[in-house]
């Protein structure tokens, strides 16, 4: 027991504010289309993308962040230098009851009820476990999600937010629907990672995949990434709770 205390005291506090760690140079984040891009419409980037996340629109590439896996193949393929990969991971967007179509009064009410102590239930319905491990990592002492009054709970009955990972598989559909029903209202749903946000775009059409999470339950927060870094997950939560 003495050893345990010694180790705890010797280690000290390692917790960081969530925005502190700067992604390393090689970190693959958001792919941005350069201003005054000289796109020649060659479609190389469109064809090379393994998840069909790029389309040409009005003579310039547009990246669907929800389906992007940040592999960087499009950037490598572009001869004209139109695309650039940045280290930006803050890509979460809001929808559903937190989206622009919802009145600010309702949004504020949701935030007032859930915002100060948010309880999350994890729901894996088809993920590769990358997202789930990153979710584990936000609980590690470095990110320590609990410092923001946010925690993971064991049952949907105790939860305010469902953090859903993976495309909706045929075999997990029932689990998704029952868990959603079991969560008391008001509730929020976060689609975490490219699979949850975009459905069958990551693996392609499959007899075993039914689609994206928002085809089954309303999604309030989308966090792209493959998987999203722990900081991207926290960013999504902070954005949803208006605590940026």
């Amino acid at each position, binding site marked *: 027991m003495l050893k345990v205390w010694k180790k705890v005291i010797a*280690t000290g506090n390692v917790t960081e504010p969530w925005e502190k760690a700067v992604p390393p140079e090689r970190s693959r984040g958001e792919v941005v289309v350069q201003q005054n891009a000289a796109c020649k419409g060659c479609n190389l980037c469109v064809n090379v993308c393994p998840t069909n996340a790029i389309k040409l629109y009005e003579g310039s590439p547009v990246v669907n962040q929800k389906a992007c896996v940040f592999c960087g193949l499009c950037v490598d393929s572009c001869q004209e230098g139109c695309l650039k990969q940045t280290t930006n991971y803050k890509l979460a967007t809001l929808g559903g009851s937190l989206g622009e179509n919802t009145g600010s009064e309702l949004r504020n009410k949701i935030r007032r009820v859930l915002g100060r102590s948010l309880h999350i239930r994890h729901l894996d319905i088809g*993920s590769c476990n990358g997202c789930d491990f990153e979710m584990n*990592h936000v609980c590690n002492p470095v990110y320590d999600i609990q410092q923001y009054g946010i925690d993971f709970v064991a049952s949907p009955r105790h939860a305010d937010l469902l953090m859903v990972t993976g495309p909706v598989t045929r075999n997990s559909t029932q689990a998704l629907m029952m868990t959603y029903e079991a969560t008391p209202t008001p509730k929020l749903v976060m689609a975490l990672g490219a699979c949850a946000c975009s459905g069958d775009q990551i693996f392609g059409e499959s*007899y075993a995949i039914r689609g994206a999470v928002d085809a089954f339950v309303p999604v309030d927060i989308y966090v792209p990434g493959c998987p999203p870094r722990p900081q991207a997950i926290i960013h999504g939560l902070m954005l949803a709770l208006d605590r940026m």
Partner: protein
Amino acid sequence: MKEYKTIPAAELRETAYQLYADGKNGLMSMFANDERQLNGNYAIYCLFSVGKSMQVIKAVLKEKGKLEFPSITPKISGAAWYEREIYDMFGLKPVGHPDLRPFALHENWPQGIFPLRKDFNNKTPVPTAKKEFPMAGVEGEGVFQVPVGPIHAGIIEPGHFIFSQAGEDIIRLDAKLFFLHRGIEKAIEGAPIERAFYQVERISGICTVAHSLSYCQAIENIAGVTVPPRAQYLRALVSEMERLYNHVGDIGNLCAGMGFAVGIMAGARLKEDIMRVNEALTGHRFLRGMVVPGGVRLDINDQLSAEIRSMLDKLIPDFNEMIELFRGNDAYLNRVETTGIVPRQAALDLGVVGIGARASGVDVDIRRDFPYGCYSSLKFDVPIYTSGDVAARLWVRVDEVAQTVNLIREILEKMPKAKGPLKAAIPVIKPYSSGFGWCESPQGNNIHWLMVGENNTVYRLYARAAAYPNWPALTVAAPGNIIPDFPLINKSYELSYACVDR
């Protein structure tokens, strides 16, 4: 190095038993392929390790004949799941199989549709059936059943368990898996092999490098491509980094099975340091983006190798201090020792691999037994423990961390200088050539079999991760223990559901 022996399916049992030689030669993998378009047959492949070589039995079933074959499960227990999967996916019936309940396709799947047959189109809508999914249990006075999952209490992957209990003691455990079944093997059929790589890389997060490597080596074996020497070292580097972060994280997380918060947090903290170096090295915390077919995509410079070295220098004393907290702690040892024992014979019968095997006294490591890449020129020991309990699996991991750290240092030391590109081009491959690729993932050996179709596309991929043969070991380990020990036993294997379910 691989011998293929083609036989009619009716002779499968006899031939397989002969090769198996009462367990002398283990079954490593077994899968089917629909080759009707090529030769009018279905084929079932069985891969055995025979001394220093691998041998393959290819059993063929005529399209027009009876779609069944004699099951090899009665003597080779390790074949049980492979055969159930073949029955589900291809409708080829293993006659004499003791347990032909549904497996990968759940109660929602209609009878008589076999998704991995070539005439099944992924675009066809499949109606939702309402069948029953029978779970195996024990009935009797005083015996009760505890259902758990698929949604669990912690942040873990989904699986449904039924514990048959007498008081606190588990009598039997049955598992329903494949909640994460994404049909990846079918979804990538017809896709160019170099593009399908990005889906294969995403079979599992924590085995990213292992799946990438097995897949790439299968392509390279078929195409006869040699990976540039420096790229081989870079591949070994990311492989060992994957083993390192997994082992360190898993050792810490084992404490979550017994509520020892200091251990959980110490492991999580050390793992985070490694994950950050992973990202500095490859741009991705799970090491995606380094390995590609033909070689690697990124090189490292002196600054990055220094960063890895200094991480290791810092990690080792800290890690050893964490292990000391366990070694001298009776409450801890009391939980892990003699818990969840898998005897050596059971491990051999089930064909258990990796950590699970080495903790039950089975001396296997595919890096040493069937070396690939640069592993034949690297020095490492394979730690073996014989008690087969949670503690043995823990100590195997602890010893492997030390081995892996030395390996990473050796790889950085010996890495040849860059000469030319780090990626060999993949030539046009003769259609319908096939081959294996394998590697040792953090959990055990990972074996892919690929058949290439026209224009370098995927005709059929079978990806067998380490968790697949290891899962059934859990049903041996759990009975005789109390339910509260199950999380501990489960975590001591740390089986990836995504790998099994695909």
